[in-house]
């Protein structure tokens, strides 16, 4: 079976790749496009380590076929910093030490940014529900929630 030719946009750049029909978008991002920020944790949509935005919608890239990306717009964790300048979500995760092994962190950054794009002033409960599909097995979640709150304050232009 011949490979499928996909034309898409990844982090603002027009991108083409070839993929097998059953290949996931996560595998394409990591193995074909060398965008290894998105991680494979569970491969079943439970852990959120592969979170990306697809046409502006937060999804697990392990639950999307590479072929489905044709004509779509993909944003991965690699697009979130502005060059060397970290996004407030990234900076506050570092500031709070809201990670240990770091495997879940890219997915949490993508998901938390997606939340703050929609809701600039979330409650702790709203953050916890929004991030319920992002599992962290190291830190517990309090530091992550606090980091997202302080990033939200930064984005609102408030001193935290």
């Amino acid at each position, binding site marked *: 079976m011949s490979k499928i030719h996909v034309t898409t946009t990844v982090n603002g750049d027009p991108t083409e790749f070839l993929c097998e*029909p059953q290949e*996931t978008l996560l595998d394409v991002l990591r193995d074909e496009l060398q965008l290894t920020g998105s991680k494979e944790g569970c491969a079943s*949509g439970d852990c959120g380590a592969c979170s990306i935005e697809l046409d502006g919608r*937060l999804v*697990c890239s392990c639950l999307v076929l590479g*072929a*489905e990306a*044709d004509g779509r717009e993909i944003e991965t964790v690699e697009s979130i910093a502005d060059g060397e300048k970290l996004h407030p979500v990234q900076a506050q995760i570092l500031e709070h030490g809201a990670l240990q092994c770091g495997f879940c962190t890219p997915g949490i950054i993508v998901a938390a940014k997606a*939340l703050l794009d929609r809701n600039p002033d979330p409650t702790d409960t709203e953050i916890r529900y929004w991030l319920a599909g992002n599992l962290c097995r190291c830190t517990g979640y309090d530091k992550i929630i606090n980091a997202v709150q302080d990033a939200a304050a930064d984005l609102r232009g408030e001193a935290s």
Partner: protein
Amino acid sequence: MRYEVADTVESAASLLAGEAGQSYVLAGGTDLLVQLRAGLVQPDLVVDVKRIDELRTISEADGGYTVGAAVAGAELGEHASIGNVWPGVVEGAELIGSTQVQGRASMGGNLCNASPAADSVPALIAAGATCTIVGPNGKREAAVADIPTGPGQNSLEKGEVLVSLHFPARPANSSDAYLRMIPRTEMDIAIVGAAVNLTLDDDGTCTAATVVLGAVAPTAIEVPEAGAALVGTKVDDAALEAVSAAASAAARPISDKRGTAEYRTKVVGVMAKRAAKIAYDRAANKGGK
């Protein structure tokens, strides 16, 4: 495995019907891709239906709604009005999975995947929603309740595609609710679920009620005795106790790692009672009483 994108419902049906081997519809993919990765399904053909307009749109006409079968939960939740008219349907759909899963998972997929614990299905049945299905022999309508036939089994014939779900216009003073029991607060599969759809008269007396239970039988089940226990009442404590008893009596659950049959039987009564109270309160407020 081949991957094809269908532009129209008819071409999707034609592709699916024309495949000699196993063919599957790909909507949100949150069940299919997991099953594919686990080797539980081995498709020869997957047909992506997400580029077909009819499967992706929500429309309103004469007080009724038509929801495309592949509309994602997040899109349903963001719709301006359907959540006011059918809050139970929307809350059921929004309970499916995480934020990420909500970005993809659809009510049509949840229905056709046919899990006994599917969170959107009890409220769809309680709503009296109907399905438009297109297959190689044309178009047909079916009740939502007739789609799942057992765990992982549905009544669609080879080549048939679920296109959309239709919600009828509602009488005044009507509302619905869905509740489920899970041992965590998020990200779990229902141990039991209960949906209630009801209509009140201007005095707050219930004139019609449908009670549907999830995860206590091979498919979601309507419990006519529980609905009947609400009709003619103001959904007072006695009526709620009767709903609870009827729901528990109708349950025929299995025991598994998520709950024993005895526990499910008891708790489904509690969920049915609470859902009835929520639906009543919603219907009463909406009537401006």
